[in-house]
């Protein structure tokens, strides 16, 4: 069995080097991942959270052998991702969100048949395994239709079926619920939870806090290429202890007003979420300071909707962690 860890990343770094310009070529360097270390126990469901460009996908690509780290080491199921590439690939599955990544002209069945060949599923097991997976992801009965006619949710389920064809020990899920409707996302979460309950190690990246909170045993928050916090969802939530959150629904808040809110005494973080014409202002402050009246004063003259005050959630803790990075 070997190590108790399915994934061991030690000081992983990845620098992208490029060139721009024709007449005067200039070298560019971007440090996407800057020394990431963590371990994932066998059977654990581990979340990697972070904003766009934080280094989540680059980290996954180093762990699943698609990228060689600039420095640092990573071991998956006891195999080094650089030196024992083939052994790692036998043991891992990879699922990513989005519409692409499937052969559009083929049926779901033929997509799975082809990847069963590529991932080394024994011919005598292929039929049974594919039927099992089609059942698992709810595509049984639709498997002979061309993928080009599939909805995003169906494609996502097919992605998952493909990732599980060879019964991998470790499954990398890179934003699997992106763009999926709420019902499909709930089914997807149930499937992921069942997999973890069955002993599969899952490394999940997501933007959705509720998803991470519901599913993950532990979460690492990554920003600016570094891990900023790591712990159970409950532990991370404590990062926002001693804070209070005021939420204000407003219409047409100018940037200057948001900046003014940031400058109020006791205010720690502010965030604006656009919801069509409505803007949802989230203001985190020290719990012992009542900032609600100051906020309303700053927003005087602006059309407001509901105003409420609440305890911080994991999402607030996440915002606090990422903002402080």
């Amino acid at each position, binding site marked *: 069995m070997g190590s108790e860890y399915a994934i061991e990343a030690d000081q992983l770094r990845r620098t992208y080097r490029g060139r721009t310009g024709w007449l005067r070529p200039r070298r560019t360097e971007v440090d996407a991942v800057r020394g990431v270390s963590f371990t994932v126990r066998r059977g654990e469901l581990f979340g990697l959270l972070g904003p766009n460009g934080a280094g989540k996908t680059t980290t996954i690509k180093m762990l699943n052998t*698609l990228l060689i780290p600039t420095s640092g080491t990573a071991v998956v199921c006891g195999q080094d991702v650089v030196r024992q590439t083939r052994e790692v690939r036998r043991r891992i599955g990879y699922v990513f969100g989005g519409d692409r990544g499937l052969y559009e002209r083929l049926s779901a069945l033929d997509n799975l048949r082809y990847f069963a060949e590529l991932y080394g599923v024994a011919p005598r097991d292929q039929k049974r395994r594919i039927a099992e997976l089609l059942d698992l992801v709810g595509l049984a009965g639709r498997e002979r239709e061309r993928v080009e006619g599939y909805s995003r949710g169906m494609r996502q389920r097919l992605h998952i079926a493909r990732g599980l064809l060879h019964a991998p020990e470790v499954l990398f899920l890179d934003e699997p619920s992106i763009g999926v409707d709420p019902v499909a996302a709930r089914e997807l979460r149930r499937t992921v939870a069942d997999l973890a309950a069955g002993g599969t190690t899952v490394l999940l990246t997501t933007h959705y806090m509720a998803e991470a909170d519901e599913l993950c045993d532990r979460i690492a928050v990554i920003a600016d290429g570094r891990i900023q916090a790591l712990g159970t969802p409950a532990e991370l939530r404590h990062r926002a202890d001693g804070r209070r959150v005021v939420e204000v629904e407003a219409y047409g808040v100018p940037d200057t007003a948001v900046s003014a809110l940031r400058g109020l005494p006791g205010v720690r973080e502010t965030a604006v979420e656009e919801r069509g014409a409505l803007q949802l202002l989230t203001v985190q402050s020290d719990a012992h300071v009542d900032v609600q009246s100051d906020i309303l004063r700053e927003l005087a003259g602006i059309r407001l909707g509901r105003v409420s005050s609440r305890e911080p959630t994991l999402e607030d803790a996440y915002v606090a962690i990422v903002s402080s990075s």
Partner: protein
Amino acid sequence: MKTIRLMTVGGVIAYRALFNWTRPSIFIGTLLIGPLFQLLFFAYLGRQLQVADDRFYLVGNAVLAATLAGVFGGTLAVGNERRYGTLGHVLLSPRSRTAVFLGRALPYGANGLFIAVFTLSVSALMLGLRIPIGAVPGLLTAMAIGSLASAFFGLTLGALGLRFRDVWVISNVAVALLMLLTGVNVPRANLPGWMATTGQYLPITHAAEAARQFAAGQGWSAAGPQLGREALVGLGYAVLAAVLLKVFEFESRRTASLETL
């Protein structure tokens, strides 16, 4: 056995997945009708200029017709992976890259053979060329080897697609060069020395010569050496394609030069 299955079963599924010229309108128009008219053009031009007889053009252009599926199919066999965003999932396979990708050339070889047989049969009926029945096995062999060599040549170009985004430019130029340098339309003896020499290392040059020898009633002993040379050229491109795919895959992991996903 598993490797053979990967190359054959996997190759056929990949062909259906990636070769979008299998739509009847494109297949018939581009791979059957187009080459037939091209053949007729060169045959009538040859008659006008009295450079060579009908057999020279019919057999040469039939073998040339096979290259369309090979060159463009081989390019699509890698290039379309990028289009569909599937390349990363293929590269995550623990199976042999050589088997995965060389297997993809086999259906294109078979496709090329079908096109060559169609083009030669229809043009022979139209222009009244008589082919001795005893020449058929030899002709089929020459066209099959030439088609497969073209498919491996196409796969080599496809491998370049892992490094260069606009590989279609190279494929288009390659098809024009095959028409010029392989002696299918201009006798190689009439070509400048460097062109004739270059042609020796391209697919179908030797297959076309062997096919003409068979069509002229000569036997295996006469055409055999040309068939052997064609097979060697095809094998060379198969090895080159496998090496390039390996090198570019490693480079993509090292330099992140490839949009794998």
